[in-house]
């Protein structure tokens, strides 16, 4: 009978354990929440009206060369019901303006914060963007009409209904910081914000207003070392492409990254000591050739890929036709009319100069003034078959005269000035 007490204790303990751990826990939890439930009920998500548009579309924008469906989702949008597709839209609409067209300075003061306004050098950034993403790198999803202010689409309130696009503060910061934090690795507010109470405020604003992008160093020649065994070296004469072939910067540099020059750590990273920390960026075949292919599409690999450094292009050594002195300042396309084709022109003057005909050509233009006797001859008498590229023959009339030892007149020197040839007579 002594044991019976022990069994009762055991039974009670069992029941207690079951109730406490089994279900009591969970129920207690909800019990405590019920108490607070009334308090939570007052909580509501605050909704705000979307910001009013800062810019208006021009009235005749329906005539613009753009599909209405890019911005409107209905067939006949009206002023009251424009049925605009909310940004960010599926299709990109972009603006293209010259850097001068925009404002020089924009003061970003829409948001009142502790750090003061940002004086943004718009023109400077616009100029730089010409070599990079262009206007739309900031003014994305813009309409074809006026350039819209950021606030037109980005609401100034953080608590808002439409969360698909960032609010105004975030839109500003994301645009600026996406580049700026890359080269400085910093998030210092004072880098852009100028405090209203700062004693150097006026000076800082003036500095931003006067700021210009420093002149970019143009390389003369770059020799690329490729991975190929045959044709390892590609020699690129930068100055010649700019000056001789008249390529403007944007025709190659349209997708530049600011970081190519602006990264403060890049130099350190490129040093040999940092080799192990450096990651090689693998460019595809297309990416490597993209800059050149636009003009050199029809050329063979061997045109650029050589085993040794390529000499600078010279018209005489490559073709045998010397451009000096009268053809030096001409654009390539003045003679090579067919786009992309620089072959097939004859050295014969008349192949281009159709007006160099019998009796019309002033022989002084080539620097030789014919004497009276020779001036009356027809062209073919000296230039066999009217081929002016070959040397003239004197032996039809003279037995002992040879060109250029003997001349059928006198030499005159030519002065090339402002693309025009002036002659000064000079006695031999």
């Amino acid at each position, binding site marked *: 009978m002594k*044991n019976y007490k022990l*069994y*009762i*204790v*055991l*039974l*009670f303990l*069992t*029941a*207690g*354990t*079951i*109730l*406490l*751990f*089994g*279900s*009591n*826990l*969970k*129920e*207690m*939890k*909800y*019990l*405590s*929440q*019920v108490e*607070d*439930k009334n*308090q*939570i*009920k*007052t*909580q*509501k*998500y605050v909704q705000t009206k979307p910001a009013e548009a800062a810019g208006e579309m021009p009235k005749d924008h329906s005539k613009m060369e753009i599909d209405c469906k890019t911005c409107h989702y209905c067939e006949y949008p009206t002023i009251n019901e424009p049925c605009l597709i909310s940004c*960010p839209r599926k299709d990109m609409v972009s603006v293209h303006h010259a850097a001068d067209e925009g404002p020089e300075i924009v003061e970003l003061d829409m948001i009142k914060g502790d750090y003061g306004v940002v004086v943004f050098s718009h023109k400077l950034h616009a100029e730089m963007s010409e070599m990079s993403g262009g206007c739309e790198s900031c003014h994305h999803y813009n309409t074809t009409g006026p350039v819209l202010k950021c606030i037109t689409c980005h609401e100034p309130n*953080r*608590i808002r209904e439409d*969360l*698909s696009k*960032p*609010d105004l*503060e*975030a839109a500003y*910061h*994301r645009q600026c*910081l996406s580049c700026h*934090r890359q*080269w400085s*690795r*910093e*998030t*210092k*507010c004072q880098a852009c914000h100028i405090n209203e109470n700062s004693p150097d405020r006026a000076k800082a604003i003036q500095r931003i207003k006067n700021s210009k992008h420093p002149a970019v160093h143009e390389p003369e020649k770059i020799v690329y070392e490729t991975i190929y065994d045959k044709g390892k070296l590609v020699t690129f004469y930068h100055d010649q492409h700019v000056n001789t072939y008249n390529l403007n910067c944007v025709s190659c540099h349209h997708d530049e990254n600011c*970081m190519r020059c602006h*990264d403060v750590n890049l130099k350190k*990273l490129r040093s040999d000591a940092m080799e192990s920390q450096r*990651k090689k960026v693998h460019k595809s075949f297309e990416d490597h050739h993209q800059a050149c292919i636009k003009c050199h599409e029809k050329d063979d690999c061997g045109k650029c890929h050589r085993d040794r450094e390529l000499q600078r292009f010279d018209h005489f050594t490559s073709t045998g036709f010397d451009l000096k002195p009268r053809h030096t300042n001409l654009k390539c396309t003045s003679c090579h009319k067919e786009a992309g084709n620089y072959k097939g022109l004859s050295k014969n003057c008349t192949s281009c100069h159709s007006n160099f005909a019998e009796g019309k050509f002033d022989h002084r233009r080539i620097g030789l003034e014919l004497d009276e006797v020779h001036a009356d001859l027809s062209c073919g008498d000296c230039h066999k078959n009217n081929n002016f590229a070959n040397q003239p023959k004197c032996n039809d009339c003279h037995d002992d005269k040879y060109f250029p030892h003997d001349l059928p007149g006198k030499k005159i020197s030519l002065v090339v000035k402002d693309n025009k040839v002036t002659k000064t007579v000079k006695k031999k």
Partner: protein
Amino acid sequence: MKNINRRNFLKFSSALTFASAGLTSNAKAAPNNILSPDRMGVLVDTTHCVGCRNCEWACKTSHGHDAGDIEKYHNREVFKEFRRPKDHSFTVVNEFENPKNELIPINVKYQCMHCDKPACVSACIVGAFQKNEMGQVTWDGGKCIGCRYCMVACPFQIPTFEYEKAIEPNINKCDFCFERTSKGGIPACVEICPVEALMFGPRTELIRVARQRIKRNPERYKNHIYGEKEVGGTSWMYLSSVDASQLKLPKHKDKTAPGVSESIQHGIFAYFVPPLALYAWLGGIMWISKRRKEIIQEVVEEEAK
């Protein structure tokens, strides 16, 4: 206290047990899940975070901790070490190398994820933790007994303990700025974020926005919203350009964290049958062994006679 003998103690404890049993049967009328379908959340877009750590400052300030000068938070030296939330810093930002662009490191903010099915709530034996209707997981100091089960249970190792305090130490963790968010406001960290890398809104809307971002920019984002389904869903969710595990966000399956432990617990105690059976079995063994001893004793006594 002299009256408390063994018999009285048993009487008292049994009464207590039945009383608590009665209490639980009343509580069964409470809803099983009071989460609102419009509950709020935060979408952390790690591709936008610039690592300014303003959120750390705002968090400390709004919770009355010593925050110091905000400018000091812009010092990036701290990123050399991986940090975890502490008793007086409910949120921390860490930095990781970006395999896609070495010039832009990836910064990730850590704080309580505010699970839809929180393990801390399940593990707390006194109900000090609760999951609120609008998503916040909060802690009640008045109920806490300091057992720190929540710290062990949390799948993200978030709750921290004030070890320095000998008297009344608190369990500390992000409370989703309950003071603000319960009155329609936004969390302090979200409010201060300069790039809105933290976006506050209804959880369903955030998931929609996150999907839209991934769809529009598949090169920028991994096709995964961390926290959408992990441990049964969390109020805070992450978008990133690399795999979440590379950002030291623990890898979890869709199963809720308390789901496993609760099912074991509930299984063990289902309808009292398993424990009763166990105790009956033990009692049986005891009785048999006792009986055997008695028989041996009797036999010995008989032999002695």
